[in-house]
């Protein structure tokens, strides 16, 4: 790795360089510390493997890989992993599970009737309601569009790619919707629900596999457009 930036061994925050944990960072303009940057013994230190970015006074790292971390308000796709008489335990592809209390279910449930309403293995569209200091988290299914999912398929991408495929003017997700004629809902936790004809689902899954394999390509959106035009799900 070329030591872009200062000769004192610090990587300039403005350079967009790849940094690894422990690398010292320098900045002339920013003093806010964002994702992956800490101050230790008076030095700015990278704690993650990723690319430096400097935006509106904040230095942060776009990590090459990261786990999904639930935040209140996130729309996520969960799997029911277990239940008690009045709550369900939800797998969110996160470092800790969430609970869904009976009172936040989309249907009326009697005490002890959780399993009849939604059994283990059920896929749900839900929203993160609360995450406390000790990482107890609560999801809700009260709200527009939040429900049990009965058809289609759920694919997964690494959570750090969620913004990659959902940002820009013509997002990769929109391209996929148009090309495949599928309904697609992208969860903030990297799970993607795709519903439509099997050929359409195949097309979307192939494109997502391409995204996973070529995540570091700068012209990813163009490459996907090309793939959708050529491949047509074949």
């Amino acid at each position, binding site marked *: 790795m070329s030591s872009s930036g200062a000769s004192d061994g610090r990587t300039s925050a403005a350079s967009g360089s790849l940094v690894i944990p422990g690398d010292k960072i320098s900045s002339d303009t920013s003093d806010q510390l964002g994702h992956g940057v800490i101050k230790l013994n008076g030095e700015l230190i990278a704690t993650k493997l990723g690319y430096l970015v400097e935006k509106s006074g904040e230095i942060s790292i776009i990590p090459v890989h990261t786990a999904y971390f639930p935040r209140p308000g996130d729309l996520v796709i969960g*799997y029911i*992993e277990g239940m008690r008489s009045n709550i369900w335990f939800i*797998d969110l592809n996160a470092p800790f599970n969430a609970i869904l209390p009976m009172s936040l279910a989309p249907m009326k449930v009697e005490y002890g009737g959780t399993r009849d309403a939604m059994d*283990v*293995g*059920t*896929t749900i569209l839900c929203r993160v309601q609360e995450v406390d200091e000790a990482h107890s988290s609560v999801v809700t299914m009260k709200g527009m569009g939040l429900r049990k*999912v009965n*058809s*289609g*398929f*759920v694919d997964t991408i690494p959570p750090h790619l969620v913004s990659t495929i959902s940002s820009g003017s013509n997002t990769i997700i929109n391209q996929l919707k148009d090309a495949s004629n599928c309904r697609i809902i992208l969860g903030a936790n990297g799970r993607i629900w795709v519903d439509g004809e*099997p050929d359409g*689902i*195949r097309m979307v*899954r*192939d494109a997502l596999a391409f995204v996973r394999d070529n995540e570091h390509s700068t012209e990813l959106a163009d490459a996907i457009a090309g793939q959708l035009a050529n491949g047509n799900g074949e």
Partner: protein
Amino acid sequence: MAQPLVPELLRAHLTELATRDQRADGRGQWEGRELSVEVGVLDRAEGSAKVQMGDTIVFCGIKFQLQTPYPDRPDEGGLMTSAELRPLAGRHIEPGPPSPESIEIGRVVDRGIRESGCINTKDLCIIPGEKVWQVIIDCFAISDDGNLFDAFGLAAIAALHNATLPGERFDVGEDRKLPVNKTPIMCSYQKVGGRFVYDSNREEEVGGDERIHITLGEDDHVHSLQKGLKGVFSASEFVEIMDAAKQRCAELRKIVDSL
């Protein structure tokens, strides 16, 4: 091994695809994933192979030990196979003593090798009644994206063909190539979405049902069979996968014999 959470949607999707004669990754019913086999990859093993099938990666190493033969078979050496599913190879593999799954794989691979007669245990005799070789086949998973059975089976026979008896190191004569007379090949089929497919990947394993493992030798001789996991199958289904296995085993045997 931890019981994986099986989303209902996955099973329903796999069934829908099966009714259309499709698989989730676009393969045909009897089509395997991209395959590579390399031999001589482990510096400390007397024979070795690395097999990659899609994102499934395994090693097999052959080691030899001296042992005293059994009194009733004074001129025959020994053969042992073990398969290790270390938690390195997948989130679903839990640490701890060997799981029933890993013991099953090791025993199925062992039976295919042993019953094919590819190793003549009399070739392992050094001094009758006193000293014989024991061949130890160690299968080791690096990345489990499904169908470790076939990956281990292929790595084991490829590593045996690559092995040298270390006579000099043990001071019992010169080094010589381990005689391997045949090439038994295992092919595994799993019922996914209501029909059998070849070489199931991890997603198909999680959303699928019973598996059948077939080891065939030269001239389609059957050397080992194993039905695993919950599920029922019919005689006609078995005939169908046996036909598929005959073809695929012959293809894979050519690959191993050409290494």
